[in-house]
């Protein structure tokens, strides 16, 4: 699906919404007694910390404004010296396959982000060589940053374990992939070692007029 097509279906969905507003009982946005109505834009902005990060290419970026806002994204956490059960390298190898399946959409209207859990060791240069070693293509960005900022993002995105011992073990946070269509506020997640075709299909499931899981069912 190219960008024009993607925008096209979004517009169709918006038209559908307008048509439906003629049905009785459509919602409006009430404001009363000091409770503020909140715009979708504001709610979206408040969902993520807009922390500064550095890409594996050495660019300075903001998490929300530069990476997430308005985009369709896949997100995960990893660290380059992740050896426990080889979860990170296998995850990265798996996402390389996902990137192949998504093809030219990656970097155009779909973006992949891998955030390090080990910002001390995973400098932009290390992340760059990691990406290169895996044959990562453009549109997939590896990110590092200040320890506190990474920690804030990790917690915000739910890569946590209530058990404090497990929470300190970064391998416990490397098994989940998050994905979302940020402008539509659609967010899901799945095991990162799911079959790459299945991961790519989950995006189609979320997209307006996207693909069916099983057309015969």
């Amino acid at each position, binding site marked *: 699906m190219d960008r024009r097509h993607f925008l096209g279906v*979004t517009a169709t969905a918006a038209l*559908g919404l307008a048509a*439906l507003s003629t049905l009785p*009982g*459509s*919602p*409006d946005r*009430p404001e009363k*007694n*000091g*409770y*503020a109505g909140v715009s*979708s834009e504001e*709610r979206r902005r408040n969902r993520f910390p807009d922390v500064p990060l550095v890409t594996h290419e050495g660019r300075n970026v903001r998490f929300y404004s530069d990476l997430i806002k308005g985009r369709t994204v896949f997100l995960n956490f990893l660290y*380059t*010296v992740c*050896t*426990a*059960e*080889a979860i990170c*390298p*296998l995850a990265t190898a798996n996402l390389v396959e996902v990137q192949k399946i998504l093809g030219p959409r990656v970097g155009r209207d779909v973006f992949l982000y891998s955030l390090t859990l080990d910002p001390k*060791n995973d400098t932009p240069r*290390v992340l760059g*060589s990691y990406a290169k*070693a*895996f044959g990562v293509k453009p549109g997939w960005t590896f990110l590092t940053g200040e320890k506190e900022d990474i920690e804030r993002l990790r*917690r*915000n995105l*739910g890569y*946590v*374990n*209530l058990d*404090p*011992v*497990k929470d300190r*073990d970064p391998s*416990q946070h*490397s*098994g*989940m992939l998050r994905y979302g269509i940020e402008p*539509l*506020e*659609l*967010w*899901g*997640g*799945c*095991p*990162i*070692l*799911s079959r790459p*075709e*299945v991961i790519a299909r989950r995006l189609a*499931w979320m997209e*307006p007029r996207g693909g*069916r*899981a099983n057309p*015969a*069912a």
Partner: protein
Amino acid sequence: MAPHIRSSGSKAHEKLVSRYMQEIRDIAKAGLSRRELFRMGLVVGGAGAAAIQGARGFKPYWAHADSLPFRSPRNTPFIDPLPIPPVMRPVTLNPAPTKGTNPGLSAVTGFPEASRPDHQRWEQFLPVAMYESIEKAVQHDFYPDIDGVPPSTVWTFVEPSTGNAGPLRIKARYGEPILHRVHNALPADNGGFGINKTSTHLHNGHNASESDGGPLHFYDARQFKDYHWPNVRAGFSNNIPESSWNGRTVPGDVRETMSFLWFHDHMHDFTAQNTYKGLVSLYTLFSDDINLDTDDETTGLRLPSGEYDIPMVFADKVFDPRTGQLFFDLFNLDGILGDKDTVNGVIQPYLEVKRRKYRFRFLGGGPSRVREFFLSNGQSFIQLSNDGNLLPRPLFRRSMRLQVAERVDVIVDFSKAGIGEKIHLQNRLEQTDGRAPTGKIIAPTNLVEFRVVGDAVDDSRVPAALLDLPNRNVAIAKNRSWKFDRTNGAWAVNGNFFDPDVFSAVIRRNSAEIWTFESAGGWVHPGHPHMEEFQILSRDGKAPPIEEVSRKDMLGVGDSVFGTDNSSKARIFLQFRDWLGNYPMHCHNTVHEDHGMMILFNVVA
């Protein structure tokens, strides 16, 4: 073996990293799974293995999100009455339903029908009662007016012929096949969470795969789908074509007669969000064809009926104190807990009751909370069913613990209460995070206030016996085990991640199997196979407690299933009769199921 790397940012490090990556890529290219790698000793498991021995600890349920340390606005209790779910009315559908995908557009919405396979056994069970609902966004007050909290946008089933909004209730009867046309008119603007694609699952329905409303059977907004719910007892096609009860003979095993089901959205990845947003309704199935549970307290079992038969959906929520709007914690993987428990969509409602017996039907509405119900005056519940299935005989219980999606029907007898008395329905189970309750019984939270206001005729009875259990003396075709686990933060069953293209079990129709459910510990997982209910054979090698000597469709395994005990392993007997096609088995902590704690099985001829 992969090297341990300690240095940072140096050339040597980079070299090591790339050598390591090459090694891993070669392994990955060879198509070896993680488990195989582990077996080959190629993988260093040190940190992971040490962590498994780690201590447990509790935190507030959304401690993961530093930006969200809020609580819901306070509510004034017992201002609004308990909403009684309106009973849906049969309608004439236009265009009339068809065996295959309907070629016409709906006269109500103009929507086409979503593509689906033909209904199985359509001619055999031509629908007699037609229902129609539209999934749409409506404004709903969870709080009473005096609290000044604005209404929230919810998504719910709305009946176009009456304008009634969910939770709705279908009163179904055995021998009367139902066709439920569900239109998806949900907006693309989701107000923060939820997706406008749906699949309506009739929970515990013994239905054909194409009408099961499984998580992969979803359809887009601006379409409808016809669900064929024939209200027929399991076994009708083969091993028990006819059986008798109370002198009446009907198809299927009368001992598989069900009574309290519910329907809810089951969209894959989004079940927690969409049900939390309101896509939940009720389905009570009566068996006047065998003069059993008749919806009339002067006949059959003579259970409290009519206005004295009241379903209650318990669903805990959070409201954003800045906006007053229903809030969903999108990045919580453990399980969602709210600080306001709603009953039929209202926080702490009251119900005026007469001095007589009532039949209440309790449903744990999820996403993740387990409750233990008590009455404030110490009175016992008279439990009639487990998961909506009549027990062999009523049980007197001071309290009952309900996992997500579990149901009980109870009789509460107010005949000895004084006029003006107030009795509270309470939850006293401590649960501080999405993993599992602690099992501790703590100070009560009042859920509903019963106000005794007068007298009324009571023709109902507490029967001595209800319904015998079905025969289990059937050849077992296969034993299977399902272990619910979390690995590197991801949900898995038997160590495998959910794959919509893989059937984890292929099962011959009309066969019986024994399944074992296991939880790895530290969690509770309410397992739920679709298609047929089951019976529990054992828990941790012992006979199940008396309330679980019943037919069930939910099986809680893990922490604090009973008391503060862990029940880590349970065996069940289940059959796969009458219908063909694919069905899921999943954890019904909806947050877990959305993130892959699910398998598919296929029933074949």
